[in-house]
């Protein structure tokens, strides 16, 4: 079990972003859906050990992140793509990825090969030595994905990873997700329901800080039978579950 959250809460003042989430995840690609403000990003930040829970228990990769040594070990095996990832404009693609490989405390001798592999996996070989300030938004997003996977993480957390990617790159990325989910836990937070349908083995839907649905994409699709809101079957399932949760 790579992720084990029990009755986890997170509040910001009076606003409850996450309200009693229980989540246990093994290997595979796990999609996290929900409207804006549902608590997806707060949940992901807690899993990334960036944001502490207000209450509740979290264990990641078999360790309690409250301990400094355990947290450091978790972070070595973690890949994280935040929703808004800042970039150092004067860095090249390779320098940026290498910088975070070093901060993740990868062995120095393994870094050049790992960086090259990560660059190739996101299809940025032609731009490897380009300055980040010269790249498009979609390319920068792929740089962010590359830094997240450079250490072959056991726990990979991606917040809106396909934002800004063109359709061809999104298809490529879904394939990458499926391959990564073979031997690690991948959590993808997204607004794009179609990403979840094709890449995720399991999906959860969040609303008002709670998980209101958990199951396979097919099960979510089935919940939309007879529901009229939404263009695709999975979207109808998404809308039906949300409407039920709000009523």
């Amino acid at each position, binding site marked *: 079990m790579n992720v084990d959250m029990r009755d986890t809460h997170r509040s910001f003042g009076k606003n409850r972003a996450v309200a009693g989430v229980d989540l246990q995840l093994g290997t595979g690609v796990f999609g996290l859906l929900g409207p804006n403000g549902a608590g997806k990003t707060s949940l992901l930040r807690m899993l*990334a*050990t*960036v*944001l*502490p829970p207000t209450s509740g228990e979290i264990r990641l990769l078999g360790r309690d*992140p*409250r301990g*400094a040594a355990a*947290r*450091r*070990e978790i*972070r*070595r095996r*973690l890949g*994280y793509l*935040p929703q*808004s*990832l*800042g*970039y*150092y*404009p004067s860095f090249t693609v*390779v*320098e940026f990825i*290498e*910088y*975070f490989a*070093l*901060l*993740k*405390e990868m062995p*120095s*001798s*393994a870094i*050049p*090969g*790992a*960086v*090259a*592999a990560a*660059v*190739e*996996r996101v299809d940025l*070989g032609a731009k*490897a*030595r380009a300055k980040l300030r010269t790249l498009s938004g979609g390319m920068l997003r792929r740089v962010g994905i590359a*830094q997240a996977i450079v250490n072959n993480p056991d726990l990979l957390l991606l917040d809106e990873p396909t934002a800004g990617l063109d359709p061809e790159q999104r298809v490529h990325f879904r394939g990458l997700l499926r391959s990564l989910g073979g031997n690690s836990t991948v959590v993808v937070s997204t607004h794009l329901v179609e990403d979840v349908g094709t890449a995720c083995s399991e999906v959860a839907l969040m609303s008002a800080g709670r998980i209101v649905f958990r199951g396979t994409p097919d099960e979510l699709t089935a919940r939309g039978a007879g529901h009229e809101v939404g263009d695709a079957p999975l979207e109808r399932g998404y809308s039906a579950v949300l409407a039920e949760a709000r009523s």
Partner: protein
Amino acid sequence: MTIPNDPGHLPSAHDTPAHDSPDRVDLDRVWTGVAAEVWRRHPGWVERTAARLLRSPGLARALVTTPSLLVPWLISTAVAFGVGALVSIGPGQSLVWLIAPGVAAVGIAFAYGPGTDPAWELSLSCAVPDRVVLFARGMAVFAVNAALGLLASTVSGAAAALTFGWLVPMTAVCALALAVAVTVRSASVGAAAGVGAWTITVLASQTASGQPSAAATNVHAYLPYLAVAVCCAAVVGYATRPQREF
């Protein structure tokens, strides 16, 4: 895809198992090995030395990428100190003592933090603790500014009390700037607090003794300066305690 672990060795067709035919060469693996060599970054001597001293290549890399230690910033600092060394308000009274604490405070405030580091959120999720990065960068910026200031002060022929006297208020002003920057999470506010506090101190000294340089030369003020520095260091320690982030 297999990642070669030996960076000094380029994979080639000869690396494939003997039973593989030439048309089964893993070109992806070969290309990745070549790309790793071509794209490899060679750290400069400063980074290599820092990595040896700090026993952490990651921390060394974070250190040499400190915004207020990059070449343009260092040139600006050197120019400011140079002007301070050339301008004098009296015999043996160059302006280095006046400039140094303010310049150092700005540098410290911009060393590290959410307002300075574009990828701050991501840095927080990395194994090298952000608190350690902050400490290393802060110490390095202080040391560089102190060295440049002392050099300028010595070259200017300032009186002995002024050559070294500003180091104590500089410590307090830098600690204050860092404490404010870390607490309010804004490098600009931290820098403004440091420069503002130093300006008020100098003006107060002039009002009290008629000598603005008394802010740096008054030995009786050293203990309060150090007390402020210790208190601000405690604030930095509290504001960056691990529980705040997790």
